């Protein structure tokens, strides 16, 4: 089984707080990120946090709205917009957190967002769009440290984690390290 069907199988059967690594090719990346959010929100009726290091939140909202996802139920952590705009307009649905190179600030934003998410009793997720981008800005060891922090945090808070990685951009060592922290690994292609 591949594609969204494989992701559905893994996500719907797992228990709360599971972390899944989704490997994808760059060609299918955009399509699968959107479809997976649709699966989580529309089919599985979850609430969530979308942590983006690749697309500004405005672009994400447009893309998700087009496929029928109610973006009001998503809290965005945007680590991209601030790279281009000094002081983006404040918005209670969006946390602007530095850049993909500032993993400390990203971690603080994750804490803040996940606490907010925990206020509602619904099953929640954190979707990270992708780990591979972090390697452009950080040393491999630092990315592994961040991955460990993220997975631990999600487990403690009992939030499902969906972590994307573009397979071609990652060396095998990093994927192995990531897979070791995660509960599942799904090859979407």
């Amino acid at each position, binding site marked *: 089984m591949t594609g969204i069907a494989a992701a559905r199988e893994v996500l719907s059967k797992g228990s709360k707080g599971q972390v899944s690594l989704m490997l994808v090719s760059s060609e299918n990346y955009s399509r699968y990120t959107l479809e997976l959010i649709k699966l989580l929100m529309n089919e599985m009726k979850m609430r969530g946090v979308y942590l983006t290091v690749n697309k500004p939140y405005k672009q994400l909202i447009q893309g998700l709205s087009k496929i029928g996802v109610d973006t009001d139920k998503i809290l965005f952590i945007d680590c991209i917009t601030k790279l281009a705009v000094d002081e983006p307009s404040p918005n209670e649905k969006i946390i602007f957190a530095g850049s993909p190179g500032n993993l400390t600030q990203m971690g603080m934003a994750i804490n803040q967002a996940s606490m907010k998410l925990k206020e509602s009793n619904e099953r929640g997720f954190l979707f990270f769009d992708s780990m591979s981008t972090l390697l452009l*800005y950080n040393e491999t060891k630092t990315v592994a440290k961040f991955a460990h922090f993220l997975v631990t945090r999600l487990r403690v808070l009992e939030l499902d984690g969906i972590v994307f990685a573009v397979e071609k951009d990652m060396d095998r060592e990093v994927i192995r390290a990531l897979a070791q922290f995660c509960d599942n690994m799904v090859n979407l292609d």
Partner: protein
Amino acid sequence: MVTRKPTGVSGFDELIQGGLPATSLTLLAGAPGTAKTTFSSQFLYYGATDHKEPGVYVSFSEDRASYLLAMRQFGMDFENLEKKKMFKFLDMLTPRGSIVRETTNIILKEVESLKAKRLVVDSFNALSIGLRDPASARIFLHFVLVKIMRALGTTTILISEIPAGELKTGMAGEAFLADGLVILHYFPKTLDPSSVRAVEIRKMRMTKHTERMVPFEIGPNGIKIQPQAELIL
């Protein structure tokens, strides 16, 4: 049971069992831009507003007008506290007479007349220059800040500048004399508009404190620490 003075720095008190030990002297060290002034001003401001404890800010490096303006940007209206006799800014930019004695007298007079329970001295380095030699600064530190302030029941923060890029403190042994040593760190990120800042509690007598460096942010209300956050560099 140790009486503690909450600092008013969001999240910091959780790292030190609820606040600075009463009548202690804490050295607050950091490079320029690490928010030492903001940290210590929050200690005075929230001490006055939330705990009804008057405070004195002794500055050897900044004038009153620029200090008040800078702190207003973080929502701390010290002018209003001055009117209510809950705060006093002591401008010590100009050296006076027999310096150690004069400086001591001025500070003591203000602390006593305001019945101040909180004191900030900014900074040890400027004080050393103002007092013309490190030996005088040590005398001031030992007798005035450690002995007299403790006798008056004042909890004190002494700011110390660390040159950017260096991590050492203690140019005149101030770190050894203090009850607490708190270091504010700054880690520049080349591609990031907002660099990383972190607080480290190197020592705090009578206190079980965190051993981790904990990141913090500077927001519209000053310093905000997430006690659970991790420094990932």
